[in-house]
């Protein structure tokens, strides 16, 4: 989800990512925003995102995260794998639409 967000929105700071996730999920996901940071750390360690310090719209210093090439590849792979498993589950759940 973070990767997708960064892929769509371009570089964002932590707060921005948190906001975006809440908006997209329609506030269905109300996690503590703090839990975002360990996840960001993990993605950065894997080399899927990169970070650098920058200045926000209202002139605050913040750390901006951007997706990397490796991250895009990972995103595609994850999407495919998700779609595949979602497809399988979907077929299980609606068997009557297939068959005859």
């Amino acid at each position, binding site marked *: 989800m973070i990767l997708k967000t960064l892929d769509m929105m371009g570089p964002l*700071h*932590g707060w921005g990512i948190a*906001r975006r996730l809440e908006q997209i999920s329609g506030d269905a996901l109300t996690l*503590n*925003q*703090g839990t975002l*940071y*360990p996840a960001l*750390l993990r993605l950065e360690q894997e080399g899927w995102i990169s970070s650098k310090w920058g200045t926000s719209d209202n002139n605050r210093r*913040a750390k901006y995260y951007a997706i990397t090439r490796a991250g895009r590849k990972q995103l595609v792979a994850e999407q495919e794998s998700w779609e595949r498993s979602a497809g399988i589950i979907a077929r299980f759940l609606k068997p009557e639409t297939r068959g005859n």
Partner: protein
Amino acid sequence: MSLRRLASRIAASFRRGRLDRDLDAEVEAHLDLSVDEHIRRGLTAEEARAAARRDFGGVEQMKERYRDGRGLPMLDWLRQDVSYGWRVLVKTPTVTAVATISLALAMGANASVFSVINALMLRLLPVHDPRSLVILAARHHNEATIMSFPMYVDLKQAQQVLTDIVATAGETPVRLTIPATDGTSTELDNMRVSFLTGNYFDVLGVQPALGRFFVPAEDQHPQSAETLGSVIVLSDSFWSRQFGRNPQVLGRTILVGRSPCKVIGVAAAGFTGEAVGYSPVGWVPLVTFTSKAQLDERTGMFTSFIGRLKSGVTREQAEASLTSLFQQLLAAERRVRDDIGGYTLALQPGATGLEYEVRRTYARPLIIIMAMVATVLLIACTNIANLLLARAAARRGEIGIRLAIGCSRARLVGQLLTESVLLSLLGTIAGLLVAYWGSRALLQLISFGPVPITLDVAPDGRVIACVAAAGILAGIAFGLLPAWRATQLEVTPALKTAASMGSAKRSRHRLSRALVAGQLALSLLLLVGAGLLIRTLQNLNGIDWGFRPEHVVIFSLAHNAQHREPEAMSQAAWNVYARVKQVAGVDSVSLSGLLIFSPSDVGTPMLVPGYVPRPGERVFARSNSVSPGYFDTVGMTILEGRGIEERDTFTAPLAIVVNESFVRRYLGGAAAVGRAIKMGRDGKTAEIVGVVRDAKYNSLRQPTEPMFYVSIMQQPRSLRALEVRTRQPISAIAGLVRDAVRSANGDVMIRGIVSLTDQVNQSLAAERLMMRLASALGALALLLACVGLYGVMSYAVTQRAGEIGIRMALGATQPSVVWMALRQTLTVVALGLATGIPLALIAARLISGFLYGLTSRDPATLTIAAVVLFGSAMLAAYVPARRAASVDPVIALRHE
């Protein structure tokens, strides 16, 4: 965890400060942005701040998780433990200093001995693929024999399992003359030059540091008047020492003996030949230094061969193949008729170089010494364990608090272990520094005699790695028990300061005493070892040597004769003898072809009329060529007939003097003088003119064997020793004798000067070294154990001051209190002896091969060692016991 994440985590571990600040800033920014948003939605600043925090969740919890994910928690713990441990060590400087110093000494001793073992026995030769090298040794029923040059050539050509074979005739001391450009020249005596076949460097795969090595053409022409002259490759150290690493040395001509040799190259630095410990100044092709007649002669010539296994051939296969080839060649040669099956060609691994004298003499002693210093290390560790145990008791409060606030016991043990490993590493580092000095000192102890050992014994990578590993292990060993014990406490009583003398104390006490008993047991090992060796040396000095070494000085000689014809050699010997005889202050003088109490040995086959050998027995006697005056000079007694005299000239009938063992073995004890025997391969007849009393020959241990002496004028050999009996100190006559020898014969050099007593003692060098070290280490160990005992007993007495006060108030006498305190010591000592005696009996077997006149289970030695141990321990315990008895009951009770 992916490799990439691991790398990132490790990298993060080293930038914690900056990353922590980054994280703080990032969280700060997040919260600020969140507050802005909430304000925009209409909350007050105060409410917005609260809401932002609520949305974010626990800031510190998040940071903690973030940090765990970012670095390596284990590493962080370690870092904390190390820095905490360091502070503890700095805060208790006395404990730290005592532990570090004792460990430094013990570790230093271990590292020193190991450095020497490593340099002497373990280090690979600095050559190409040392592991495929093999040493070839001709054996007859497992006894070394030597091979001839033609045999070497035949073997080299016919064999198919080795890539090539090198033969070396060993190192010979020669006189080097280095002409300078201005017409003067420098003469250097006793320079060791190695004589070998020209393929030597190619087979070993050594590179020249300068110039080149031999080419085949330089290795083909035997020495003759026309071909006098050769080439030489210098060693790197000699090039540095003598020529200041000047590359102009190439092409210069230096004289090796009398043979002018052109310098063609310098061997790579660090390469000192195939025999570790001896480093020649140069290498020359032996063929060019040997006459054709000598090369063709099918008698022994080489001492060692080196080969390189073809790839895919194992040492066992090669050995079998070469042995059968060797036997075929022997059969073809027809010199050996019977028992050809008894000859073998043994192959030994050659990766660490040649098996030779220094290594043979010291390999086992060094391992025994290693065991001794390891024992001392064990004792030192025990001492430190006791020290830490005491400190752990003092830290009960601290440990109790840590346990109480939820620190896991494993983590605490880890913390305490980190401290002890830290302590041990401190000691280890100091120990390595000690070893730089110690290994050199040890080398000095084993390096004497005419050829000093040159060996780089400075600790290398292997030594440092092993010692560091030993240090960490030692740290864990002496830290584990105290750490375990320290954390094994009930939290509540531990936090109550005054009432902390609970049951934990009592078991700690038992543990300390067990440790001290262990120390005593280990000390006993060393004491018994020292005792056995001391008595061995006493026994060896007490036996009848058969000669009188007092006032005798031995000059060992190197004789590179220019003219080797027997007549010329005979004349040369006479000249030196006659000239030195005239030196003022010399009472009597003699020459010999074999140095007394040296490893050299010559056996001569004989035919004794009337003696019927048992089947398979070879009639053999040791022999030595000596000049007139030999028996008087060395102090041997002629029992019958006469000694070798001046009338036994080159042309006179051959006369020999035999010893008592000869008469007993071969003449059935009958009258010997006047009988004739045939000796040597040529079967010359010699008449026995005298019988000399049996004397030790090259070892005090071995029983005397049949031996005969012949005049060096009649059976000339290269001169190896000059014996002088004099009342003057060595320094007063050394120069005079040197000048006399020089003026009599320029081919003879003096290699070393030593009193005969020291010459004999050299043969016991290994025993003496072990005895000295065992005594010193034994005393040290005993001291350590006694200090430990003293500490434990003093502590016990202080603990029981109140009880003792009550006893005394109730009428206990001073002696009874002393006895009560000593009784505790008795149990500790008894425990120490009970474990130490069986241990000592087992360990003493290690040195049983070095003992003389007693066995490793010698009861007297064991008793003496036990008594010494008992006495010292009681003395150490008596002081605190006295103190206990002088307790004033009033004060003790008031204190209670």
